[in-house]
């Protein structure tokens, strides 16, 4: 019972923690918000009850406090993402993996664009929009890897049969 509820949020927080280690990978800083977006998307799609809105907000706030972004920005973005994903559930759950993948890329790019807009507003100038393109391309490559990991968790430790 417990694992079913705790695996999604623990995976999300652990991933954010690990991506903060100084590996010196190129694009590591961009991977952290993308990872959060991926987790929220996946769980909202396949098991909305196990990642409720308060936990999503908490993860978003953590992302903001860790990454020096304006406080609350990613909390709002992740909640919007959750709302959008739940709205699209009806179409995406029965669809093939390719559609789910495409949906993720679109939503992740939308999140990146919104965060870019807010950063521009906060800095009162046009910040380079290059990261949006990077995030979009990263999202394309990143989702299958993330999905493999999360599907394992979904069927394994977080599975309904363990309740």
């Amino acid at each position, binding site marked *: 019972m417990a694992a079913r509820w705790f695996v999604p949020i623990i995976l999300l927080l652990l991933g954010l923690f690990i991506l903060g280690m100084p590996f*010196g990978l190129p694009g590591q800083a961009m991977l952290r*918000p993308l990872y959060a977006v991926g987790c929220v998307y996946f769980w909202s799609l396949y098991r909305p009850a196990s990642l409720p809105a308060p936990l999503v907000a908490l993860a978003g706030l953590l992302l903001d406090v860790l990454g*020096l972004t*304006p406080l609350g920005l990613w909390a709002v973005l992740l909640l919007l993402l959750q709302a959008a994903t739940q709205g699209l559930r009806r179409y995406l759950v029965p669809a093939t993996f390719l559609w789910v993948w495409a949906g993720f890329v679109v939503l992740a790019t939308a999140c990146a664009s919104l965060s870019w807009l807010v950063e521009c507003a906060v800095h009162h100038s046009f910040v380079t929009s290059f990261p949006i393109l990077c995030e979009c391309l990263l999202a394309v490559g990143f989702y299958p890897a993330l999905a493999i990991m999360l599907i394992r968790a979904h069927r394994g430790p977080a599975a309904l049969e363990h309740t």
Partner: protein
Amino acid sequence: MVRLSIPLRQVLSRLTLPTMLVVCLAVTLIGQADQGVSNTLRAGLDDILAPAYMLVSGPIRAVEHGTGAIGHLFTLSAENAQLREQNKELLQWQEVALALQAQNAALKASLHFVPSAPPKFFTGEVVADLGGVYTRSVLVLTPPANGTAKALIGAVAMDGRGLAGRVIDVGSRAARVLLITDINSRIPVAIGAEGAPALMVGNNGPDPILTYWSTTQPPAEGAMVLTSAQAGAFPPGLPVGVVHYNDKNQPMVLPLADLSTLRMLRLFSYPNELSDLTPVPHDAVREGAGAGLADHRRVGHHGGPRF
């Protein structure tokens, strides 16, 4: 557990998301209105995370060194030859440096030059790279401070080669360093031998750009960039980088510090040179400064400053 009727539960579950959204929007507004809230939160979280990062970063570093050593075995003889060559060259430069140092000392003596007091510093390990998409910062482990941590705010962070950034947040175990490449970083610099003033502005890219340079003294390609004491926020003469013109003919600075793989940072506090531009009220820093420095002196010194 309270049993709720099914319709009520449905209404509640439908309301959670909009409610959380409103709460988070409120948090955003509060965060924008009062920067102190997020700073306090960040310092607290950094304090919790720093020891955890320390624990897990240790083994990673050990493995990393191991693979490096094994990789080096294959190119040992070629590398040795290269090093011998470089050593020969460096020995020549050493002689030049020694001669210049002697000359400098003689000139200073004849000018009755009064040297400024050497800064107090300590070395901290970089345990986490916590930049975001639009921010560049690292977390540095600091020795446990007894209530004098605030003296470190505004401290200058340098790696072995040059300026890396500035401390913006201090907790009791960790300090957050804003790197010079961050978009919020503004550093007054002096360019070349004549010390032409300019402002080095971070742009989240690998190389910060130069702005506000005098049109009569444009920065020359390859000129050395040092910090400037203008506005009193930085001590003068710390090495920062080298001027380079990019393809848009905009002067930028190639940092000397290896900002992508920071492992150790030295934090220098210059309490007497803090100006009004520092992120904390001046008096608060001055109060803690004396005691804070005594603390830092006791902490491990890994070598003297190079400048």
